[in-house]
C-alpha cells in the first residue's frame, strides 16, 4: 500500500517569494492534516480537512498561508509571501475520520528554508 506522498522534498526561497507544497494521502483516507515542524521542535497542526471541507484552520496564518483540498483527495498548502520564520518542515498526514488514533500516517515532509 502506498503511503502519504509529499512534494517537493526540499524548497529554498528568498523572503517574499511564494511556494506550494503538495500532498497525496493514502487512498481512501478522508481526513488530511498539515503540520509545521520547526527545527528541534514537535510538529504543530496548521489545518485539517474532512473530504474537501476545512474542519479547523485556526492555527493557519491566514494572511499568508492557504490550504485547499478541492476534490477531497490531494491537497495543496501555499505560502504567499514567505518569511524567515516560516523555515520548517511541513508534514502531511492522513487517516479515516473517526477511526482509531493508530491509523494516522505521515508523509516524509517538505523541508522549507527561507533565506
Amino acid at each position, binding site marked *: 500500500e502506498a503511503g502519504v506522498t509529499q512534494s517537493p522534498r526540499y524548497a529554498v526561497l528568498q523572503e517574499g517569494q511564494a511556494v506550494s507544497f503538495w500532498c497525496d494521502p493514502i487512498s481512501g483516507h478522508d481526513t488530511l492534516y498539515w503540520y509545521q515542524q520547526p527545527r*528541534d521542535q*514537535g510538529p504543530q497542526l496548521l489545518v485539517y480537512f474532512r473530504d474537501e471541507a476545512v474542519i479547523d484552520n485556526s492555527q493557519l496564518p491566514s494572511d499568508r498561508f492557504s490550504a485547499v483540498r478541492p476534490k477531497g483527495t490531494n491537497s495543496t498548502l501555499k505560502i504567499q509571501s514567505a518569511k524567515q520564520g516560516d523555515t520548517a518542515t511541513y508534514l502531511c498526514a492522513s487517516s479515516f475520520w473517526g477511526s482509531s*488514533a493508530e491509523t494516522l500516517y505521515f508523509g516524509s515532509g517538505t523541508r522549507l528554508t527561507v533565506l
Partner: protein
Amino acid sequence: EQQVQQSPASLVLQEAENAELQCSFSIFTNQVQWFYQRPGGRLVSLLYNPSGTKQSGRLTSTTVIKERRSSLHISSSQITDSGTYLCAKYSAGNKLTFGIGTRVLVRP
C-alpha cells in the same frame, strides 16, 4: 503553555543500555501516542497507549491517566534506535499536540 512536556531533552546511551523517556500533560488526555523520527525522516508511530502498559518488541509504554503522564522504556538499545522520540496527545478529530521530543543517541 506547553501542553505536552517531555524529558529528558536528550539522552546518550551505550549500545545495549536501557532508557526511560517521560511525557507529561498539562491537561487531561486519554489518548497518548509515541512516535519516532530519524533526522530528515518521516514520523513513524511506535505505540498508541491510552492507558496501562503496552509493549511492542523492545519498547514498553506505560500511561497513568490520572497522573497525566506516560513513559516509554527502550530495552537493550541498538545503534539504529538513535533519533527523536515524540510523545503526543489526541483531541477530537484525531488532532495531535506534540511535545518537543527526546533526542536519543546510541553509541557502539
